[in-house]
């Protein structure tokens, strides 16, 4: 058996999961091959290391706590009489809520864009907004203001304005 094949089987060899013949072949290979032997030793070392993880001690009152827990009534969302009823209705109720949500959303969307707040054909804006978005924003600035001074400065060409 070649090293490549042996190394693929080392894990199963360690777990004694190979067939007897294969197990013997790997054993004889390990006796003669130092590289594979070292790899196997490394695998064993990790296995031993895992054994150092401590075991949790059993709780002496485990059974008492368990029976107490089992005696507690299960947490219920509904009265027992209605529980089965609501359980059966869960899927159709969720589906109906989703369907109604889509219908209401569609209706509101159409209503608001056609007749309501967001209609687009008759847009009415406050006066300050129309001033801002219209060409009136580019009207000459009142003389003597800071804005007027700035515009005069950036547009200064050395000639007197007509």
């Amino acid at each position: 058996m070649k090293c490549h094949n042996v190394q693929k089987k080392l894990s199963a060899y360690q777990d004694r999961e190979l067939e007897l013949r294969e197990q013997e072949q790997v054993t004889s290979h390990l006796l003669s091959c130092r590289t594979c032997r070292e790899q196997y030793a490394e695998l064993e070392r990790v296995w031993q290391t895992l054994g150092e993880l401590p075991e949790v001690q059993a709780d002496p009152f485990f059974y008492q706590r368990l029976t107490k827990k089992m005696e507690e009534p299960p947490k219920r969302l509904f009265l027992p009489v209605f529980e089965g009823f609501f359980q059966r209705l869960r899927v159709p109720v969720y589906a109906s809520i989703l369907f109604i949500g889509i219908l209401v959303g569609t209706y509101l969307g159409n209503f608001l864009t056609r007749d309501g707040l967001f209609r687009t054909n008759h847009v009415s804006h406050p006066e300050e907004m129309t001033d801002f978005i219209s060409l009136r924003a580019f009207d000459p600035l009142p003389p003597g203001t800071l804005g007027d001074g700035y515009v005069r400065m950036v547009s200064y060409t050395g000639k007197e304005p007509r």
Partner: protein
Amino acid sequence: MDLLLPSEELMARIAEGDEDAFEILVNRHQTSVLNLIYRFIGDRTQAKDLAQEVFVRVWQAAKSYEPKAKFTTWIYKITTNLCLNEIKSASRRRWFLFHRSDEDSEKSIEETFSDGSPTAEDLLLSKERTRQISEALQSLPENQRMALILRRYDDLSYQEIAQIIGCSVSAVESLLVRAKRTLQEKLKNYEE
């Protein structure tokens, strides 16, 4: 009642409502179930809660239980499913669990030296070793971790692990090869 009755026989009695049989069964399997959960999840308090949940399910399922496989395979399958569900729901509160796990492993180490014999240095060294091993285990993907724990600590065969996890024997072999390789890498600097 005979304390040496096989678990399958106890289950038949539990199905008839025999609480004594249930107590024997719980006492027989609580440590292995608790440790399987603790090693998988890394949180001792949660492990205790989940172990209780496992036995609640055993009681509830007693009437439908059919001894097709070994009882341990059946109870470990319940345990594994609960652990996987817990991992899924715990991913939302991972930060919280991470901190509790540290606290928990410290408690568990202190319990292993309950007679108070070790020196402070021994305790510190042991805590550090446990932390490294536990972190290496927790870093494995869920299926690899469960396969490795069942193999290493419960000494189950590949066939039994395959039944518990719900995969083929060759898949178990592959999971274990990858898990061991990862642990070799993670525990490379671990010193005796």
